[in-house]
């Protein structure tokens, strides 16, 4: 594929900037169409890039990565598709034939990056414990710099080596590996929640965990609805404790019956 070195650098840079923004400033992370168009602009065919980006934008409607889940990377697919479509001259279909599978794989690279980030976080916390705060603050942004490589490396490989190499890599990766990464991506958030629970006062209020779980598992109440119920429970609890305190202080001075009548609820 007739890509000049300058074009390769620019497209790779585009993919880096895209992914950096997507995960940090988050301005254009969902604007798939923009990246198709920008890749087109770099390669001198803004319009075709725009149209390819538009197609992928429509395909991505409703797909969102929430709660730390990983999702197909449509803007990355748009960059690759645009580039290959324009430089190969074989049009949108040819471009998307490579762009889409790589975009789908993006989901798995994302799982890997999030694992690397664990190590960085651990390291930073260690520095904190040693009171090396400078090192700590310098360690954390490493993640920021590394993260975009999850897009840049695949894009680079795809546009430089093209279909054959991509296909070879895809063929090389056994299916259980990609499925396994997907499964791991679904399971790994559990680690964070387990850790979180370690710090919560479960001996005292752990039974509320069951209530929240039943509400969503059995009744499919979304988290906002559960939070509304949780707020009701919290207000009730707050009032009980606060009133109890007041009434106890009162009863230390003199017995005040009417005050106590309402202290319980």
């Amino acid at each position, binding site marked *: 594929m007739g890509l000049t070195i300058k074009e390769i650098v620019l497209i790779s840079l585009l993919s880096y900037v895209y992914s950096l923004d997507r995960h*940090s400033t*988050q301005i254009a992370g*969902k*604007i798939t*169409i*923009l990246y198709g168009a920008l890749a087109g602009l770099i390669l001198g065919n803004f*319009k075709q890039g*725009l149209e390819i980006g538009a*197609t992928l934008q*429509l395909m991505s409607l*409703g797909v*969102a*990565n929430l*709660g730390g889940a990983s999702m197909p990377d449509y803007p990355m697919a748009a960059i690759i598709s645009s580039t290959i479509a324009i430089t190969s001259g074989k049009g949108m279909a040819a471009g998307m034939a490579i762009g889409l599978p790589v975009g789908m794989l993006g989901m798995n690279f994302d799982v890997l990056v999030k*694992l690397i*980030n*664990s190590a*960085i*976080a651990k390291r*930073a*916390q260690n520095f*904190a414990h040693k009171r090396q705060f400078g090192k700590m*603050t310098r360690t*954390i942004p490493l*993640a*920021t710099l590394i993260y975009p490589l999850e897009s840049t490396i695949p894009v680079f490989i795809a546009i430089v080596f093209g279909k054959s190499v991509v296909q070879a890599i895809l063929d090389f990766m056994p299916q259980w590996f990609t*499925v*396994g990464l997907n*499964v*791991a991506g679904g*399971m*790994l958030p*559990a*680690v*964070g*929640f387990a*850790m*979180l*629970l*370690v710090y*919560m*006062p479960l001996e005292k*209020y*752990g039974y*509320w*965990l*069951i209530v*929240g779980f*039943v509400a*969503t*598992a*059995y009744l499919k109440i*979304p*988290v*906002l609805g*559960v*939070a509304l119920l949780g707020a009701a429970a*919290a207000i009730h*609890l707050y009032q009980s*404790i606060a009133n109890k305190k007041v009434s106890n202080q009162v009863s230390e001075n003199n017995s005040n019956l009417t005050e106590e009548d309402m202290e319980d609820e």
Partner: protein
Amino acid sequence: MNNIKKLTKKDILKTAFRHFLGVTTFNYDTGIAPTIVWELFPVLRKIYSNDDDLVLSLDNHFRYYNCNPWLSPLITGATLAMEEKDGVKSIEAVQNLKTGLMGPLSGIGDTIIWVMLPTIFGAIAGSMGKNGNPLGMWLFLAVFLVCFFLRPYLYFVGYQTGTNLLSKLGQKLDAFTDAVSVLGIMVIGSIVSSTVNVQTGWTFQTGGVKISLQSILDQICPSLLPAILVFVLYYMLKKKVKMATLILAVIVLAMVGAVIGLFKA
């Protein structure tokens, strides 16, 4: 701690900007905690002259935290006000507030920022773009740019809310802490069910009848496997098993499970 206002408007703004590290630090054991640590470090340094106190506070912020990054400033803004006023004594309340609100705010923020806006403007941009018209694309970008410039402001809202709350609560802070932890625990119960994804792929296809083990499990208790996974991990952590070990174990479990078809993506 004393009540002398330590933080200036500039401090808050700086923190708000540092928050743009966003989800680049996302990792499975502590979520975006590193981002929070990094963004808060300068102001925490200012609040805690004592290194030991600083480390206590940092360690707290190194705990698992995950929130829609657009609305997260409402929470950390508020906790800033708490730490400014009460120092290390506020740490438990800070932790509860973060845990209690991260779920609901993510629910609202994710829906608006990651589902609603991209669906609406993505549809417009995509359908216009397919006809070669980039107008919808610029509109999409413009909308997110406007939102982008409004984001830092939320930090001030959070900080102000936190300040007001504290002055109202007075000495009832521990009642408040307990109440918020009930909210938080209930929300975790809910998001374990909605965020962790473990599904068994075992099916029995015999004699034209296809029975899926997952569908039988769903009849007994939906989200049973995620709940068990979190419970086991929690138990391990309580038994002082190391985080890294658990992450590795989960990955191995996922891979092996994918190979033998026990789990499906």
